[in-house]
């Protein structure tokens, strides 16, 4: 029973990571730096609450959350693909912009600087634990995201093109691959997936709170890098990071390890991975570079 509870809690924490990291893996494999996952998630969380609030339907919430993610992702794509803006700068700017616009709209829509009113969510609220988890469709989407992404990236024409434009856009272009269009699709896909992760968060808590993603987009990015840009490994990294958090929550009463040190685990592991101490983590060759 303890193990089941532990597993359920790990999955509950891992879902937003899995969704955002699958978006991050998709964009990064196409050569686009994914610093904006945090912003996409926050936008998705806010969009979902707005949709759910005005329609009183969680499903409409999901749709409007994804729409918010797509909106932010298209700003990213216009800047980096149409105008060749620096991808790192654009990512940071999207994050700042999203924090600002969600606070502004929170103030405008609900006259609050901290949180939205309670909104609809998924599942029967009277059942708790693993059952509530299973009744949330976004959980299943989250669990399926990485395997589906692995299939798309390694087994489909689109995936081949994504990998080609991420490794060698010039060569891909000379073979007739529409580089910018593939990258557009990858950025939009990452926006939608990360926004789903954000929508899961806010619908799970039945409200939006200011800056509620709290760095989860960066943990997802860490998982992508720690997972060496491979969907399956990135998925395992998400579960690992979530398990560490669950362990920390469970052990909180015992005060064995300060929570701040557990919070560092993903970042430390990622640094160790990119420093190549145990097997070098190598990014896609054209990551961050604009196609000419």
């Amino acid at each position, binding site marked *: 029973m303890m193990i089941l509870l532990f597993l359920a809690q790990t999955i509950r924490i891992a879902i937003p990571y899995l969704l955002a990291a699958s978006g991050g893996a998709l964009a990064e494999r196409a050569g686009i*730096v994914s*610093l904006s996952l945090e912003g996409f998630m926050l936008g998705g969380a806010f969009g979902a609450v707005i949709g759910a609030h005005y329609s009183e339907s969680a499903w409409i919430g999901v749709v409007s959350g994804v729409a918010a993610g797509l909106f932010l992702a298209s*700003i990213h794509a*216009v*800047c980096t693909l*149409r*105008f*060749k*803006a*620096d991808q*790192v*700068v*654009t990512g*940071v*700017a*999207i*994050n*700042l*912009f*999203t*924090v*600002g*616009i969600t*606070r*502004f709209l929170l*103030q*405008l829509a609900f006259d609050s*600087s901290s949180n939205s009113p309670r909104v609809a969510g998924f599942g029967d609220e009277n059942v708790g634990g693993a059952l509530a988890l299973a009744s949330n469709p976004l959980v299943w989407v989250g669990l399926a995201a990485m395997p589906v992404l692995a299939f798309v990236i390694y087994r489909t024409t689109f995936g081949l093109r994504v990998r080609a434009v991420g490794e060698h856009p010039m060569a891909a272009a000379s073979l007739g691959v529409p580089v910018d269009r593939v990258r557009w699709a990858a950025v939009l896909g990452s926006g939608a997936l990360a926004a789903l992760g954000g929508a899961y968060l806010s619908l799970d808590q039945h409200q939006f709170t200011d800056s509620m993603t709290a*760095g989860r987009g*960066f943990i997802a*990015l*860490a998982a992508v*890098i720690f997972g060496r840009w491979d969907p399956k490994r990135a998925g395992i990294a998400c579960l690992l990071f979530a398990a560490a958090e669950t362990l920390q929550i469970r052990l909180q009463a015992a005060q064995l390890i*300060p929570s*701040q*040190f557990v*919070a*560092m685990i993903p*970042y*430390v592991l*990622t*640094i160790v991975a*990119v*420093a*190549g*101490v145990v097997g070098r983590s190598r*990014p896609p060759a054209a990551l*961050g570079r*604009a196609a000419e």
Partner: protein
Amino acid sequence: MSLSASRRAALEEAILPPLVALAIVLVVGDVLILATGEAPSDVWAALVSGTWGNWYGIGQVLYKATTLACAGLAVAVSLRAGLFNIGAEGQLAAGGFGAAIVGLALPAGTPGIIAIALCTLAAIVGGGAVGAVPGVLRARFGAHEVIVTIMVNFIVLALLNYIVAAKLHVPETLHTPSMNAGTVPRLADAIPAFHGSAANWTILLVGAAIAAVAWYLFRTRAGFELRAVGLQPEAAEYGGVKVPRVWLRALVLSGAIAGLGGVNFVMGYKGYYEDGFAGGAGFLGIAVALVGRNHPLGVVVAALFFATLSQGGLAINAMVPRQVVEVLQGIVILAVAASVPEVRRLVRQAVSARGVAASSAAAAPSAPAGGSRG
């Protein structure tokens, strides 16, 4: 003549993107303000009069610009070396923490000048030490500094949060006890007009540091090497520059400059370290460097601009939610980032068109004379 033409092109490349951004910001700002039901002209007027219209506002802008200039210069120095330090937030916090710890450790009677020097040094060392992590990993293992600086940011902030929350806070708060020595007086002590604003004399320390960095970048051999590595690492390597060593030096220097920014809040304003005092200034440093074109002088101007926006948010808060300025800051960055490559392309096109026109005009009357290019 060709020199002045290239100067003019460089100037256009530097000035045009911020102007484009300003135009976009005014339009987006108008839309957001209209959405709240206020008149845009009233809000803009309040923003200007609440910042540059009175001494308190000016003092606040100067205070905020001091931290932002450090963060911006830190990012600019790294970019000059071809590296992107996006860890200024953590470095700024570490610098402030270093200054506060030394100020706590010193006995109360320490002469001001010695205490200030030691605390400032601690800020520089604190930031530099955090910058050394990505520096070493880049120089030694080739680890990408963007990834490492993001991750180190979170690690440093979590570590400082742990130290302050678990070991060193004044009960019921998240700040350390007040420093015994090393605090710097406010500007208002000498110039009463600034009364109430946080502006303080650390602005002189930071100004001197900016001048020193400008001198280092443009007047010393090491600075030349740093810029050479940023422009063309392979060529610099071929020219005898030890590139990894320059990377390490650049990231340590970058971290140290960001760390210096911590003195403004810790030594000049509060007299203690408070968890989260950086409050995003490190990330805005990226915007400051971008708008300031990685030039120390440009960084100062850009820092004043972003400081005006954030102070302006407070000035208009009674009319529209102050978060408007956070949105606008994001828009400025996006607009400048997106227009820099476009403007560069257009300016170069115009320059070559001018060049062709000039040379054909010069060549036409005296067709046989060869060598129109000099």
